[in-house]
């Protein structure tokens, strides 16, 4: 029989003094410090709990508090007047309950360590998943493997977090972010998962707590009855209020604890976990002949096996020392660089103003967005997103959809029109603006908005043609139906600022805006005063001096469309 020599000097010491012999050396990293789940470790990795252990402290406080009050007030009387055995039994029950609780809460429930990167790669190779829906956000269907366990077909699920096929009866706890073997449930009262390794402690805890609660309740009530003289119960309560308090607490808690103890006794005798019971994995209600393949067949054998069977050691090796090879084995996810470098997008750098051709009908509809090279719209360094596709505006003569090469950076919503922050509704609903699919325009224009002057703010709103769905990206050019806009109705650089828009007059009630049918015209609110209009009209003209000025006379200016200068993508 091998005897372990416990290192009491090292117990509960800080990790900086992990071994007494190596105090002069550098601090060693233990495996618990780089553990990938969400558990919390104490005393140098010896004890572990779930991430949020607040309710566990409440449990400890309740049990300890009630028992202490009981010992102080009731035991004194009962030991003298009834028998000395009562406090002894009480102490024994209390100690047993607390030790079971601490063992349940602070031990490893049977966590299955995550697969190493090579294992994960091997498993991936074994499973060929043909993913037909090639969408970046589509997750492949959960992979399952069917095994025969004692004649019963059991499906093993693949855990995406831990990158392994879960053994039968294992389950992934989302709170602790671990796969736990023979997962029963995550108990917040105990502050830990209940699994294969600590199920017996949990069972012992609730059974002994049930006994303790009943015992304390009985003793407290006995105490109160014994000091009742002449049938005046309330006098007795006044004499010993603590007993009454203790009795009330125990009364309310005993029902739930007894119920839980009974339920777990049933589970133990049928060798099921709470998880399996809830899911109904082995009930005969399913119609098929499903039996529990893990059961020993006999009630007693099941009990014995669960409560007194061999206890597996902890597989996560919390106190082991981290070596370089261990570190390299860990399957860490590849961290994506958050800031995309401002690379060369294959476009020629243009500095200064760009001369716009007036005849924009010749534009083949290839657009590029502004880069830092234009000088006009120096992009925010943190938000230079490239669109995956740039779908040209509805009104241009020869629209082509050009895929760009840049990756999409989340968060993005591919099916949402680019939205603007306040004050630029015209762009939001505009059909003249190319729809930059996948671009996060909010960020893109963010820095600009303070300099925008928007005459349409709450006075005149421009409504344009109703929005149509952009054409599908992989469409053949010949079949592409171009929306035809007659020359006089086109909004392009040649017409910006000069075209007279058809205006209609409406009257808006103060505070209420009438619903506008969508059409390509300006709705002028007749309540606008002339001085308002003058304010709008007297805007400084635009200059190409590198600063983003915009002249708004009701329409987006030509400079705006600087962004959409024709260029070739190569």
């Amino acid at each position, binding site marked *: 029989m091998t005897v372990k020599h416990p290192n009491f000097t090292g117990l509960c010491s800080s990790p900086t003094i992990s071994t007494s012999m190596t105090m002069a050396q550098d601090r060693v990293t233990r495996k618990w410090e780089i553990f990938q789940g969400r558990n919390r470790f104490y005393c140098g990795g010896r004890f572990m709990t779930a991430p949020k252990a607040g309710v566990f402290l409440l449990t400890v406080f309740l049990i300890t508090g009630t028992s202490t009050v009981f010992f102080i007030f009731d035991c004194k009387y009962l030991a003298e007047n009834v028998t000395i055995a009562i406090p002894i039994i009480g102490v024994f029950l209390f100690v047993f309950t607390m*030790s079971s609780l601490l063992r349940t809460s602070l031990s490893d429930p049977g966590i299955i360590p995550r697969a190493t990167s090579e294992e994960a790669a091997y498993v991936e190779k074994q499973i060929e998943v043909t993913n037909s829906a090639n969408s970046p956000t589509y997750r492949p269907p959960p992979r399952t493997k069917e095994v025969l366990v004692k004649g019963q077909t059991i499906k093993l699920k693949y855990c995406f977090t831990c990158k392994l096929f879960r053994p039968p009866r294992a389950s992934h706890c989302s709170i602790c972010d671990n796969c736990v073997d023979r997962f029963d449930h995550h108990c917040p009262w105990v502050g830990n998962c209940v699994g294969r390794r600590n199920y017996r402690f949990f069972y012992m805890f609730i059974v002994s707590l049930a006994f303790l609660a009943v015992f304390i309740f009985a003793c407290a009530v006995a105490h109160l009855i014994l000091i009742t003289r002449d049938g005046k119960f309330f006098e007795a309560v006044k004499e010993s209020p603590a007993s009454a308090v203790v009795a009330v607490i125990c009364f309310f808690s005993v029902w739930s604890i007894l119920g839980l103890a009974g339920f777990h006794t049933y589970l133990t005798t049928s060798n099921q976990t709470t998880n399996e019971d809830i899911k109904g994995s082995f009930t005969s209600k399913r119609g098929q002949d499903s039996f529990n393949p893990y059961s020993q067949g006999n009630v007693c054998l099941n009990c014995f096996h669960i409560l007194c*069977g*061999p206890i597996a050691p902890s597989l996560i090796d919390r106190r082991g020392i981290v070596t370089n090879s261990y570190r390299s084995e860990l399957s860490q996810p590849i961290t994506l660089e958050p800031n995309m470098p401002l690379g060369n997008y294959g476009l020629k750098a243009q500095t200064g103003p760009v001369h716009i051709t007036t005849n924009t009908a010749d534009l083949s509809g290839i657009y590029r967005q502004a880069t830092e090279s234009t000088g006009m719209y120096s992009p925010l360094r943190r938000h230079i997103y490239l669109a995956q596709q740039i779908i040209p505006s509805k009104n241009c003569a020869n629209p082509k959809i050009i895929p760009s090469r840049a990756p999409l950076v989340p968060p993005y919503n591919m099916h949402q029109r680019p939205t603007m922050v306040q004050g630029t509704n015209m762009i939001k609903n505009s059909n003249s603006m190319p729809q930059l699919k996948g671009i996060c325009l909010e960020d893109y224009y963010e820095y600009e908005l303070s300099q925008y002057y928007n005459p349409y703010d709450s006075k005149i709103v421009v409504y344009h043609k109703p929005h149509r769905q952009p054409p599908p990206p992989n469409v053949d050019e010949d079949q592409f139906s171009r929306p035809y806009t007659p020359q006089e109705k086109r909004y392009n650089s040649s017409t910006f600022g000069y075209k007279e828009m058809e205006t209609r007059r409406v009257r808006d009630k103060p505070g209420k805006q009438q619903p506008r049918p969508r059409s390509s015209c300006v709705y002028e609110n007749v309540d606008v005063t002339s001085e308002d209009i003058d304010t709008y009209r007297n805007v400084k003209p635009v200059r190409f001096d590198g600063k983003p000025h915009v002249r708004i006379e009701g329409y987006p200016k030509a400079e705006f469309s600087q962004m959409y200068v024709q260029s070739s993508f190569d």
Partner: protein
Amino acid sequence: MSNHYNNGGRAGETEQMAQPQYLKVFIPRDYTDGTIVRFQRSFPQELEGRLEKQTFESTINRLNEIFEEAEKASCSAYCEGCFACVTAYLIYLCKETRYEKKLRKVSKFIAEQNERVFEPRGLKLTDPSSRGLRVLEISCFDRPPNA
């Protein structure tokens, strides 16, 4: 592309990642008899020609036997469990569990097998305890990982 975002502190890790990798064969668990620890006895393709089937099977069988001993619900196991329960599990501060003893036996067996059988053939068994008893890892040293 990401070079200039790679801080100096992380250079060490990337070096470690670039360690020479070997072909690794993983032998999964066999669940036909429940949740006890057993490894599959089917001979993996990648080891053909490098290891005899007999040797492989005998190793796996012996390993499975040791695990079965560890998990067997025998009388002595129950007695030990009851005794530990009675002492409020404080006995485990002094004595190690039966399972742990068997795991030590497994480690010893694997080390011995490596020395005698596997290393002369350029292979190496990894202790399944260090892989969380999920797989049995066999590394082939003279083959690149993608062979």
